[in-house]
């Protein structure tokens, strides 16, 4: 563990806020007040936290339809996120994007994305900017196991390798693309074996283990920032909820989730790891959880109370000028 107490507290705070955010959304969605499609990240927090721990505002990430965790880990404002999900004017995108399109370029967050695999190409561009403009930044694409099979994703990996871009391809292999198991849809079962097809280093890690993710990402960012080109990281873990809110999940056994929560949970694991190492006392972590709860609660209340966008907003922001 090469991380300071502050780093560890920060990492736990990120995970706690993500967990609280999405657990709360699960509850709120059931009331029918939240419009559209919502995909929850609960269970995968260690990935977003471990990856983004190495990033600052000059670095970019491109996310997926399951993007809340990435946003929070990349330091997007949760009040703005919540308002966006509720479709309010105060949302990060003025209510025009919604859960699947939350973005905040000031934070280096290039958007959740409703198109599976699409963010990988955007990331090649952000990495090209970093390289061309000499910002020292890196760009990270999150993609699911299902998304890992999309043509654009392969093309982007090849391009990043050929152009030797400071790009990192993070695959969240959470076992399913919708109802379909990754072992079935992904020839060969593993995503990591695709790294060498594009001449880049590949890491496969337990996505429930913050430290494993963190360490793979440390190597990948070092390489990228040193101008040595892209890397691939495959993180394996499972989501706690359905593909989207409303999914009956009859494609997996109920016990699967119970076992996950009981035995694999990344936050419990983190607590155990830092506890064993005697690095952080439980009270500090409990306090973080309590803060996160309060913060998300306030965000939900604010979002519910916030005004919807004015009618005039329909026509703006299509073009810079037209």
């Amino acid at each position: 563990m090469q991380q300071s107490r502050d780093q560890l507290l920060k990492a736990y705070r990120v995970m706690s806020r993500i967990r609280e955010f999405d657990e709360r959304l699960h509850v709120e969605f059931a009331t029918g007040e939240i419009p559209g499609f919502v995909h929850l990240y609960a269970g995968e927090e260690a990935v977003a936290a471990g990856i983004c721990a190495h990033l600052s505002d000059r670095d970019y990430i491109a996310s997926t339809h399951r993007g809340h965790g990435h946003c929070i880990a990349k330091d997007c404002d949760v009040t703005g996120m919540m308002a966006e999900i509720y479709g309010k004017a105060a949302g990060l995108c003025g209510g025009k994007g919604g859960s699947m399109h939350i973005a905040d370029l000031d934070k280096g967050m290039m958007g959740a994305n409703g198109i599976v695999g699409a963010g990988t190409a955007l990331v090649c561009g952000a990495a090209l900017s970093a390289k061309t403009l000499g910002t020292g930044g890196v760009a990270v694409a999150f993609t699911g196991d299902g998304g890992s099979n999309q043509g654009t994703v392969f093309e982007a990996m090849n391009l990043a390798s050929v152009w030797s871009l400071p790009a990192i391809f993070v695959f969240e292999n959470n076992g399913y693309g919708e109802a379909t198991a990754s072992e079935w849809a992904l020839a060969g079962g593993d995503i990591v074996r695709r790294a060498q097809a594009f001449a880049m280093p590949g890491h496969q890690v337990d996505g429930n283990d913050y430290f494993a993710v963190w360490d793979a990402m440390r190597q990948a960012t070092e390489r990228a920032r040193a101008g040595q080109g892209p890397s691939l990281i495959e993180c394996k873990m499972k989501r706690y909820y359905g593909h989207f809110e409303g999914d009956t999940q009859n494609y997996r056994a109920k016990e699967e989730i119970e076992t996950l929560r009981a035995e694999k949970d990344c936050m419990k694991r983190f607590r155990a790891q830092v506890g064993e190492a005697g690095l952080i006392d439980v009270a500090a972590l409990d306090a973080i959880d309590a803060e996160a709860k309060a913060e998300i609660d306030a965000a939900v209340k604010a979002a519910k109370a916030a005004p919807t966008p004015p009618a005039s907003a329909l026509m703006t922001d299509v073009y810079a000028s037209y």
Partner: protein
Amino acid sequence: MASKSFRAAINEALKLEMRRDNRVIVLGEDVAGGRGGSANVEEAWGGPFGMTRGLYKEFGATRVLDTPITESAFVGATAGAAMTGLRPVAEVMFVDFTGVCFDQIMNQIAKIRYMFGGKAKLPLVIRMLYGAGYRAGAQHSQCLYPIYTHLPGLKVAVPSNPHDAKGLLISAIRDDDPVLFFEHKAILGMKGEVPDEAYEVPLGKANIVRAGKDVTVVAIGRMVHMAEKAAAALAKEGIDCEVIDPRTTSPLDTAAILASVRKTGRLVAVDEAYPRCNMATDIAALAAQEAFGSLRAPVRMVSPPHVPVPFAAPLEDLYIPNADKVAEAVRATVKHTSSS
């Protein structure tokens, strides 16, 4: 005859045609569902919208094929399969996702027969959900059938009700040309009378939903209901609308549309698709060229504004053409004539 939902009508059409012809196969993401998961695949998804539920159980894995999330590969595969003896019906969940397989539709499926000098037959169907109203945002709410109507070599069906959905889908499956089949996500639960047996609603034959003498209102897909609602309201004002549902945009039943315009002398074209180069312009231009002499007022187009589909509910509601906007357009055409 029983009342069935749009969703059930689609499901029934698939089942009946699969029973009738074992060359018909169904493929797409989670059309069976649960493949490789820990639960019993027979009870599984049938797609996130349940459109194909029960097919896997009845027809098994050789005829109901789950796919990885690789639209380009599996949509292209429909062309290869259709050329070589199968009659594939692919599901591309949302039409918005055809962006990733557009080449296979535009440059392969649409053109192969012509490029081969007629020596290939491509009996395939691509089913897709489309349309706004689901609070699904800019990448999950588009119409896009104008794009496919633009491309020669494709047929395009946009059913507005359960009865037509079943009959058009059966026709599409039996047809020897590629058919793009559009299902509006906001009317999947809509019910209507649907015969239990198989029947065809021919491609290229419009439906006169409501006969009238004052104004012709041509509306596409879900917009037919907006037009009907407007017509009902206008009837109380003494304005008698003829509402036409073309059912397919390619081929388009131009004869039915022109006959109506020649009769009423007025046209309102209603389309949920983006306003530029859409079906409203296509139909308005048709009338302006072919029925100009009969027109007694400017044609009117009712479409959304030239913007992506917004997420926030009040904005999306403003975006979608509704009965009020249709009625307003009809009133304008009627007023114009009276005052001129």
